[in-house]
Protein backbone atom coordinates (compact mmCIF):
# COMPACT_ATOMS: atom_id res chain seq x y z
CA UNK A 1 0.00 0.00 0.00
CA UNK A 2 1.59 3.30 -1.06
CA UNK A 3 1.92 5.94 1.63
CA UNK A 4 -1.00 8.34 1.67
CA UNK A 5 -0.70 11.98 2.55
CA UNK A 6 -3.55 13.52 4.56
CA UNK A 7 -4.50 15.53 1.47
CA UNK A 8 -4.95 12.27 -0.46
CA UNK A 9 -7.08 10.83 2.32
CA UNK A 10 -9.23 13.93 2.30
CA UNK A 11 -9.76 13.69 -1.44
CA UNK A 12 -10.74 10.00 -1.17
CA UNK A 13 -13.13 10.58 1.75
CA UNK A 14 -14.85 13.51 0.06
CA UNK A 15 -15.22 11.48 -3.13
CA UNK A 16 -16.72 8.52 -1.22
CA UNK A 17 -19.12 10.76 0.70
CA UNK A 18 -20.34 12.55 -2.40
CA UNK A 19 -20.39 9.65 -4.87
CA UNK A 20 -21.51 6.79 -2.61
CA UNK A 21 -23.79 8.68 -0.25
CA UNK A 22 -24.80 11.74 -2.29
CA UNK A 23 -23.60 14.27 0.27
CA UNK A 24 -22.94 17.81 -1.04
CA UNK A 25 -19.20 18.18 -1.67
CA UNK A 26 -19.23 21.97 -1.18
CA UNK A 27 -20.80 21.68 2.27
CA UNK A 28 -18.36 18.94 3.31
CA UNK A 29 -15.41 21.10 2.23
CA UNK A 30 -16.93 24.19 3.88
CA UNK A 31 -16.52 22.39 7.22
CA UNK A 32 -20.03 21.14 7.97
CA UNK A 33 -20.19 18.43 10.64
CA UNK A 34 -21.72 15.05 9.68
CA UNK A 35 -24.63 15.96 11.95
CA UNK A 36 -25.16 19.16 9.96
CA UNK A 37 -25.09 17.13 6.73
CA UNK A 38 -28.06 15.20 8.15
CA UNK A 39 -26.61 11.74 7.52
CA UNK A 40 -28.26 8.65 8.96
CA UNK A 41 -26.50 6.64 11.65
CA UNK A 42 -25.26 3.88 9.36
CA UNK A 43 -23.37 6.04 6.86
CA UNK A 44 -20.33 6.49 9.10
CA UNK A 45 -20.12 2.70 9.55
CA UNK A 46 -20.42 2.23 5.78
CA UNK A 47 -17.78 4.92 5.22
CA UNK A 48 -15.42 3.18 7.66
CA UNK A 49 -15.86 -0.11 5.78
CA UNK A 50 -15.14 1.56 2.45
CA UNK A 51 -11.97 3.05 3.96
CA UNK A 52 -10.88 -0.50 4.81
CA UNK A 53 -11.60 -1.66 1.27
CA UNK A 54 -10.10 1.28 -0.60
CA UNK A 55 -7.27 2.44 1.68
CA UNK A 56 -6.56 -0.78 3.62
CA UNK A 57 -7.07 1.04 6.94
CA UNK A 58 -9.29 -0.73 9.48
CA UNK A 59 -11.47 1.50 11.67
CA UNK A 60 -13.49 0.38 14.68
CA UNK A 61 -17.18 1.21 14.89
CA UNK A 62 -17.38 4.58 16.64
CA UNK A 63 -14.01 5.90 15.41
CA UNK A 64 -15.85 8.22 13.03
CA UNK A 65 -18.26 10.43 14.99
CA UNK A 66 -21.24 12.39 13.75
CA UNK A 67 -19.86 15.54 15.43
CA UNK A 68 -16.80 15.39 13.11
CA UNK A 69 -15.96 17.76 10.30
CA UNK A 70 -14.14 16.29 7.30
CA UNK A 71 -10.74 17.31 8.70
CA UNK A 72 -11.48 15.43 11.96
CA UNK A 73 -12.30 12.31 9.95
CA UNK A 74 -9.10 12.68 7.90
CA UNK A 75 -7.07 12.96 11.13
CA UNK A 76 -8.59 9.75 12.56
CA UNK A 77 -8.09 7.79 9.36
CA UNK A 78 -4.48 9.01 9.11
CA UNK A 79 -3.84 8.06 12.75
CA UNK A 80 -5.39 4.58 12.38
CA UNK A 81 -3.38 4.08 9.24
CA UNK A 82 -0.16 4.99 11.07
CA UNK A 83 0.24 7.99 8.80
CA UNK A 84 0.10 10.74 11.40
Amino acid at each position, binding site marked *: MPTLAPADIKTRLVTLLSEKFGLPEDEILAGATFDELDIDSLILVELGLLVRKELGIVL*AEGDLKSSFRIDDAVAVVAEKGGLA
Partner: protein
Amino acid sequence: MTAATHRAAVLCGLGGALPATAVPNSALAAELDTTDEWIRTRTGIRQRFVIAPGEATSDLAVAAGRRALESARRTAHGDRETRGGGPGKDAAPDVDLVVLATSTPDHPCPATAPAVARRLGLTGVAAFDIGAVCTGFVYALATAASMITAGAARRALVIGADTFSTILDPADRTTRAIFGDGAGAVVLRAGDQAEPGALLGFDLGSDGAGEELITVPAGGSRQRSTATPPPERDRYFTMQGRAVFNEAVLSMSKSAETLLARIGWRGADLDRVVAHQANVRILRAVADQLGLPEDRLVINLVRVGNTVAGSIPLALADAAADGTLRPGDKVLLTGFGGGLTWGSAALRWPSPYVEPVA
Protein backbone atom coordinates in the same frame (compact mmCIF):
# COMPACT_ATOMS: atom_id res chain seq x y z
CA MET B 1 -10.49 -45.61 -6.17
CA THR B 2 -10.03 -42.97 -8.86
CA ALA B 3 -9.22 -39.33 -8.26
CA ALA B 4 -12.72 -38.42 -9.45
CA THR B 5 -14.50 -40.02 -6.50
CA HIS B 6 -14.47 -37.81 -3.44
CA ARG B 7 -17.30 -38.42 -1.04
CA ALA B 8 -19.31 -35.25 -0.46
CA ALA B 9 -22.68 -34.10 0.82
CA VAL B 10 -24.93 -33.07 -2.05
CA LEU B 11 -27.90 -30.70 -1.80
CA CYS B 12 -30.90 -32.53 -3.29
CA GLY B 13 -33.97 -30.86 -1.77
CA LEU B 14 -35.01 -27.37 -0.64
CA GLY B 15 -38.07 -25.72 0.87
CA GLY B 16 -39.18 -22.80 3.00
CA ALA B 17 -42.09 -21.83 5.23
CA LEU B 18 -43.51 -18.56 6.54
CA PRO B 19 -46.30 -17.88 9.03
CA ALA B 20 -49.68 -16.74 7.70
CA THR B 21 -49.52 -13.21 9.12
CA ALA B 22 -47.53 -10.52 7.31
CA VAL B 23 -46.71 -7.32 9.17
CA PRO B 24 -46.11 -4.43 6.76
CA ASN B 25 -44.07 -1.38 7.76
CA SER B 26 -47.30 0.61 7.95
CA ALA B 27 -48.49 -1.60 10.82
CA LEU B 28 -45.31 -0.91 12.80
CA ALA B 29 -45.59 2.81 12.04
CA ALA B 30 -49.11 2.80 13.46
CA GLU B 31 -47.90 1.27 16.72
CA LEU B 32 -44.36 2.61 17.26
CA ASP B 33 -42.44 5.84 16.72
CA THR B 34 -41.22 4.88 13.24
CA THR B 35 -42.16 5.30 9.58
CA ASP B 36 -42.22 3.15 6.46
CA GLU B 37 -39.60 5.48 4.96
CA TRP B 38 -37.27 5.16 7.97
CA ILE B 39 -37.46 1.36 7.93
CA ARG B 40 -37.01 1.08 4.17
CA THR B 41 -34.03 3.44 3.95
CA ARG B 42 -32.21 1.89 6.95
CA THR B 43 -32.96 -1.79 6.26
CA GLY B 44 -34.58 -2.35 2.86
CA ILE B 45 -37.37 -4.30 4.57
CA ARG B 46 -41.03 -3.73 3.62
CA GLN B 47 -42.69 -6.50 5.61
CA ARG B 48 -41.97 -9.43 7.89
CA PHE B 49 -44.06 -12.39 9.10
CA VAL B 50 -45.02 -13.34 12.65
CA ILE B 51 -46.47 -16.53 14.11
CA ALA B 52 -49.94 -16.59 15.69
CA PRO B 53 -50.47 -17.00 19.45
CA GLY B 54 -49.79 -20.62 20.37
CA GLU B 55 -47.63 -21.36 17.33
CA ALA B 56 -43.98 -22.33 17.79
CA THR B 57 -40.68 -22.64 15.95
CA SER B 58 -41.26 -26.37 15.39
CA ASP B 59 -44.41 -25.61 13.38
CA LEU B 60 -42.37 -23.63 10.86
CA ALA B 61 -39.53 -26.16 10.98
CA VAL B 62 -41.93 -29.02 10.19
CA ALA B 63 -43.53 -27.11 7.31
CA ALA B 64 -40.15 -26.20 5.79
CA GLY B 65 -38.79 -29.71 6.41
CA ARG B 66 -41.81 -31.32 4.75
CA ARG B 67 -41.37 -29.12 1.66
CA ALA B 68 -37.63 -29.90 1.49
CA LEU B 69 -38.34 -33.65 1.71
CA GLU B 70 -41.00 -33.35 -0.98
CA SER B 71 -38.55 -31.34 -3.09
CA ALA B 72 -35.97 -34.13 -2.70
CA ARG B 73 -38.52 -36.76 -3.68
CA ARG B 74 -39.67 -34.88 -6.78
CA THR B 75 -36.12 -33.95 -7.75
CA ALA B 76 -35.07 -37.60 -7.53
CA HIS B 77 -38.01 -38.54 -9.76
CA GLY B 78 -37.11 -35.86 -12.28
CA ASP B 79 -40.41 -34.15 -11.59
CA ARG B 80 -39.89 -30.49 -12.45
CA GLU B 81 -43.57 -29.60 -12.80
CA THR B 82 -46.02 -28.62 -10.13
CA ARG B 83 -48.57 -31.35 -9.51
CA GLY B 84 -51.47 -31.59 -7.12
CA GLY B 85 -51.55 -33.68 -3.99
CA GLY B 86 -49.53 -33.71 -0.82
CA PRO B 87 -46.23 -35.39 -0.07
CA GLY B 88 -46.08 -39.02 -1.06
CA LYS B 89 -45.62 -41.82 1.44
CA ASP B 90 -41.97 -41.99 0.56
CA ALA B 91 -41.41 -38.27 1.12
CA ALA B 92 -38.69 -38.95 3.68
CA PRO B 93 -36.91 -42.05 2.44
CA ASP B 94 -33.60 -42.87 4.06
CA VAL B 95 -33.24 -39.66 6.07
CA ASP B 96 -31.24 -40.69 9.14
CA LEU B 97 -30.30 -37.29 10.56
CA VAL B 98 -32.23 -34.11 11.43
CA VAL B 99 -30.25 -31.02 12.41
CA LEU B 100 -32.22 -27.94 13.43
CA ALA B 101 -30.52 -24.56 13.72
CA THR B 102 -32.51 -22.31 16.04
CA SER B 103 -32.10 -19.80 18.87
CA THR B 104 -35.81 -19.83 19.67
CA PRO B 105 -36.52 -23.48 20.52
CA ASP B 106 -40.04 -24.52 21.52
CA HIS B 107 -38.75 -24.99 25.10
CA PRO B 108 -35.50 -24.16 26.93
CA CYS B 109 -35.15 -27.94 27.31
CA PRO B 110 -35.21 -30.34 25.45
CA ALA B 111 -34.00 -29.65 21.90
CA THR B 112 -36.73 -29.10 19.31
CA ALA B 113 -35.28 -31.35 16.58
CA PRO B 114 -36.60 -34.68 17.97
CA ALA B 115 -40.19 -33.38 17.98
CA VAL B 116 -39.74 -32.04 14.45
CA ALA B 117 -38.34 -35.40 13.31
CA ARG B 118 -41.27 -37.28 14.83
CA ARG B 119 -43.84 -35.03 13.13
CA LEU B 120 -42.10 -35.67 9.80
CA GLY B 121 -42.36 -39.43 10.25
CA LEU B 122 -38.69 -39.73 11.17
CA THR B 123 -38.94 -41.12 14.70
CA GLY B 124 -35.73 -42.93 15.56
CA VAL B 125 -33.24 -40.84 13.60
CA ALA B 126 -30.45 -38.78 15.15
CA ALA B 127 -31.90 -35.33 15.86
CA PHE B 128 -30.39 -32.32 17.61
CA ASP B 129 -30.38 -28.53 17.68
CA ILE B 130 -27.52 -26.19 16.85
CA GLY B 131 -27.32 -22.65 18.22
CA ALA B 132 -25.28 -20.08 16.31
CA VAL B 133 -28.04 -17.47 15.95
CA CYS B 134 -27.98 -16.01 12.41
CA THR B 135 -25.04 -18.25 11.43
CA GLY B 136 -26.91 -21.32 12.66
CA PHE B 137 -27.88 -22.65 9.26
CA VAL B 138 -24.30 -22.58 7.94
CA TYR B 139 -23.07 -24.30 11.12
CA ALA B 140 -25.83 -26.93 10.79
CA LEU B 141 -25.01 -27.46 7.12
CA ALA B 142 -21.32 -27.95 7.93
CA THR B 143 -22.16 -30.38 10.75
CA ALA B 144 -24.55 -32.49 8.68
CA ALA B 145 -22.27 -32.48 5.63
CA SER B 146 -19.33 -33.55 7.78
CA MET B 147 -21.36 -36.42 9.27
CA ILE B 148 -22.24 -37.55 5.76
CA THR B 149 -18.67 -37.42 4.48
CA ALA B 150 -17.51 -39.23 7.64
CA GLY B 151 -20.04 -41.97 6.99
CA ALA B 152 -22.02 -41.24 10.17
CA ALA B 153 -25.14 -40.36 8.17
CA ARG B 154 -26.44 -41.11 4.67
CA ARG B 155 -29.12 -38.50 4.21
CA ALA B 156 -29.77 -35.44 6.35
CA LEU B 157 -32.55 -32.92 6.75
CA VAL B 158 -31.00 -29.58 7.74
CA ILE B 159 -33.45 -26.93 8.95
CA GLY B 160 -32.99 -23.31 9.98
CA ALA B 161 -36.02 -22.00 11.88
CA ASP B 162 -36.61 -19.10 14.24
CA THR B 163 -39.47 -17.11 15.71
CA PHE B 164 -37.76 -13.96 16.96
CA SER B 165 -41.16 -12.27 17.31
CA THR B 166 -41.36 -14.23 20.59
CA ILE B 167 -38.22 -12.63 22.09
CA LEU B 168 -38.34 -9.07 20.74
CA ASP B 169 -39.05 -6.13 23.03
CA PRO B 170 -42.50 -4.96 21.88
CA ALA B 171 -41.37 -1.34 22.40
CA ASP B 172 -38.09 -1.66 20.40
CA ARG B 173 -38.80 -0.03 17.05
CA THR B 174 -35.44 -1.13 15.61
CA THR B 175 -35.48 -4.88 16.26
CA ARG B 176 -39.26 -5.09 15.61
CA ALA B 177 -38.59 -3.64 12.15
CA ILE B 178 -35.70 -5.94 11.31
CA PHE B 179 -36.67 -9.41 12.52
CA GLY B 180 -39.35 -11.77 11.22
CA ASP B 181 -40.30 -15.41 11.73
CA GLY B 182 -39.53 -18.07 9.14
CA ALA B 183 -37.86 -21.35 8.29
CA GLY B 184 -35.99 -22.99 5.45
CA ALA B 185 -34.63 -26.49 4.99
CA VAL B 186 -32.45 -28.55 2.70
CA VAL B 187 -31.92 -32.27 2.20
CA LEU B 188 -28.34 -33.48 1.86
CA ARG B 189 -27.41 -36.91 0.52
CA ALA B 190 -24.13 -38.74 0.19
CA GLY B 191 -22.61 -38.24 -3.24
CA ASP B 192 -19.52 -37.16 -5.09
CA GLN B 193 -17.74 -33.83 -5.03
CA ALA B 194 -17.96 -33.57 -8.83
CA GLU B 195 -21.79 -33.55 -8.80
CA PRO B 196 -23.82 -30.33 -8.99
CA GLY B 197 -25.05 -29.52 -5.48
CA ALA B 198 -21.96 -30.95 -3.77
CA LEU B 199 -20.86 -28.82 -0.82
CA LEU B 200 -17.29 -27.95 -1.76
CA GLY B 201 -16.03 -26.48 1.50
CA PHE B 202 -16.79 -24.51 4.62
CA ASP B 203 -15.27 -21.74 6.67
CA LEU B 204 -16.55 -21.36 10.25
CA GLY B 205 -15.42 -19.03 13.02
CA SER B 206 -16.32 -17.27 16.24
CA ASP B 207 -15.26 -14.46 18.60
CA GLY B 208 -16.78 -14.55 22.08
CA ALA B 209 -15.44 -11.05 22.80
CA GLY B 210 -18.53 -9.80 20.99
CA GLU B 211 -20.96 -11.87 23.09
CA GLU B 212 -22.84 -8.82 24.36
CA LEU B 213 -23.45 -7.25 20.95
CA ILE B 214 -26.30 -9.69 20.22
CA THR B 215 -27.94 -11.19 23.32
CA VAL B 216 -30.94 -11.99 25.47
CA PRO B 217 -29.40 -11.01 28.84
CA ALA B 218 -31.74 -13.00 31.11
CA GLY B 219 -33.26 -16.47 31.15
CA GLY B 220 -30.06 -18.50 31.09
CA SER B 221 -27.95 -19.92 33.90
CA ARG B 222 -26.02 -16.66 34.45
CA GLN B 223 -29.19 -14.86 35.51
CA ARG B 224 -31.21 -17.78 36.90
CA SER B 225 -28.46 -18.76 39.35
CA THR B 226 -28.99 -15.39 41.07
CA ALA B 227 -32.53 -16.53 42.03
CA THR B 228 -33.79 -12.97 41.60
CA PRO B 229 -36.24 -11.95 38.90
CA PRO B 230 -34.52 -10.07 36.06
CA PRO B 231 -35.56 -6.59 34.96
CA GLU B 232 -38.29 -6.85 32.33
CA ARG B 233 -36.10 -5.56 29.50
CA ASP B 234 -33.41 -8.21 30.17
CA ARG B 235 -35.88 -10.86 29.04
CA TYR B 236 -35.78 -9.48 25.51
CA PHE B 237 -33.37 -9.69 22.62
CA THR B 238 -30.99 -6.74 22.31
CA MET B 239 -28.60 -5.81 19.55
CA GLN B 240 -26.02 -3.03 19.25
CA GLY B 241 -26.87 -2.12 15.70
CA ARG B 242 -23.91 -0.11 14.41
CA ALA B 243 -21.23 -2.36 15.94
CA VAL B 244 -23.08 -5.42 14.60
CA PHE B 245 -23.31 -3.83 11.15
CA ASN B 246 -19.54 -3.28 11.10
CA GLU B 247 -18.67 -6.77 12.38
CA ALA B 248 -21.20 -8.44 10.07
CA VAL B 249 -19.71 -6.90 6.95
CA LEU B 250 -16.10 -7.55 7.96
CA SER B 251 -16.74 -11.12 9.14
CA MET B 252 -18.83 -12.25 6.16
CA SER B 253 -16.38 -10.68 3.72
CA LYS B 254 -13.31 -12.23 5.36
CA SER B 255 -15.01 -15.62 5.72
CA ALA B 256 -16.06 -15.56 2.07
CA GLU B 257 -12.54 -14.64 0.96
CA THR B 258 -11.04 -17.40 3.13
CA LEU B 259 -13.33 -20.04 1.65
CA LEU B 260 -12.84 -18.86 -1.93
CA ALA B 261 -9.07 -19.10 -1.53
CA ARG B 262 -9.39 -22.57 0.04
CA ILE B 263 -11.46 -24.04 -2.80
CA GLY B 264 -9.69 -22.17 -5.58
CA TRP B 265 -12.57 -19.99 -6.75
CA ARG B 266 -12.14 -16.34 -7.69
CA GLY B 267 -14.64 -13.85 -6.29
CA ALA B 268 -15.28 -12.51 -9.77
CA ASP B 269 -16.45 -15.98 -10.87
CA LEU B 270 -19.28 -16.11 -8.34
CA ASP B 271 -22.71 -16.10 -9.96
CA ARG B 272 -24.65 -15.62 -6.74
CA VAL B 273 -23.85 -14.68 -3.16
CA VAL B 274 -26.53 -15.73 -0.69
CA ALA B 275 -25.59 -13.80 2.43
CA HIS B 276 -27.53 -13.74 5.67
CA GLN B 277 -30.47 -11.41 5.05
CA ALA B 278 -29.69 -9.00 7.88
CA ASN B 279 -30.11 -5.62 6.24
CA VAL B 280 -29.89 -4.61 2.58
CA ARG B 281 -27.15 -2.11 3.41
CA ILE B 282 -25.08 -4.87 5.02
CA LEU B 283 -25.52 -6.97 1.87
CA ARG B 284 -24.43 -4.10 -0.37
CA ALA B 285 -21.42 -3.42 1.85
CA VAL B 286 -20.41 -7.10 1.62
CA ALA B 287 -20.61 -6.87 -2.18
CA ASP B 288 -18.41 -3.75 -2.02
CA GLN B 289 -15.84 -5.55 0.13
CA LEU B 290 -15.78 -8.53 -2.23
CA GLY B 291 -15.59 -6.27 -5.28
CA LEU B 292 -18.78 -7.76 -6.71
CA PRO B 293 -21.60 -5.97 -8.53
CA GLU B 294 -24.79 -5.79 -6.47
CA ASP B 295 -26.71 -7.90 -8.98
CA ARG B 296 -24.80 -10.98 -7.76
CA LEU B 297 -26.58 -10.66 -4.41
CA VAL B 298 -29.66 -12.70 -3.67
CA ILE B 299 -32.01 -10.41 -1.75
CA ASN B 300 -35.35 -11.50 -0.30
CA LEU B 301 -35.33 -9.59 2.99
CA VAL B 302 -37.62 -7.00 1.38
CA ARG B 303 -40.57 -9.35 1.92
CA VAL B 304 -39.46 -11.47 4.89
CA GLY B 305 -37.05 -9.36 7.00
CA ASN B 306 -34.25 -11.03 8.95
CA THR B 307 -35.44 -14.54 9.80
CA VAL B 308 -32.25 -15.48 11.71
CA ALA B 309 -31.45 -19.19 11.13
CA GLY B 310 -34.20 -19.37 8.51
CA SER B 311 -32.65 -16.57 6.50
CA ILE B 312 -30.21 -18.30 4.15
CA PRO B 313 -32.35 -21.35 3.26
CA LEU B 314 -35.42 -19.11 2.79
CA ALA B 315 -33.40 -16.87 0.46
CA LEU B 316 -32.24 -20.00 -1.41
CA ALA B 317 -35.82 -21.24 -1.73
CA ASP B 318 -37.08 -17.90 -3.05
CA ALA B 319 -34.17 -17.56 -5.47
CA ALA B 320 -34.51 -21.15 -6.72
CA ALA B 321 -38.27 -20.84 -7.17
CA ASP B 322 -38.07 -17.58 -9.16
CA GLY B 323 -35.15 -18.68 -11.34
CA THR B 324 -32.55 -16.32 -9.83
CA LEU B 325 -30.46 -19.41 -9.07
CA ARG B 326 -29.74 -21.38 -12.21
CA PRO B 327 -28.32 -24.89 -12.50
CA GLY B 328 -24.52 -24.74 -12.58
CA ASP B 329 -24.26 -21.33 -10.89
CA LYS B 330 -21.28 -20.89 -8.58
CA VAL B 331 -22.98 -20.04 -5.30
CA LEU B 332 -21.46 -18.79 -2.06
CA LEU B 333 -23.42 -18.82 1.20
CA THR B 334 -22.17 -16.59 4.01
CA GLY B 335 -23.60 -15.79 7.42
CA PHE B 336 -22.88 -13.81 10.54
CA GLY B 337 -24.62 -13.83 13.90
CA GLY B 338 -24.57 -13.66 17.65
CA GLY B 339 -21.71 -15.26 19.50
CA LEU B 340 -20.17 -13.70 17.55
CA THR B 341 -20.18 -16.38 14.85
CA TRP B 342 -19.67 -16.47 11.11
CA GLY B 343 -19.48 -19.07 8.39
CA SER B 344 -19.49 -19.68 4.65
CA ALA B 345 -20.17 -22.56 2.28
CA ALA B 346 -19.87 -23.01 -1.48
CA LEU B 347 -21.56 -25.16 -4.08
CA ARG B 348 -22.49 -25.34 -7.73
CA TRP B 349 -26.24 -24.99 -7.92
CA PRO B 350 -28.04 -28.26 -8.73
CA SER B 351 -31.53 -28.50 -10.25
CA PRO B 352 -33.85 -29.10 -7.33
CA TYR B 353 -37.61 -28.88 -7.75
CA VAL B 354 -38.59 -26.02 -5.42
CA GLU B 355 -42.10 -24.80 -4.52
CA PRO B 356 -42.52 -21.03 -4.19
CA VAL B 357 -42.64 -20.01 -0.50
CA ALA B 358 -46.05 -18.43 -0.02
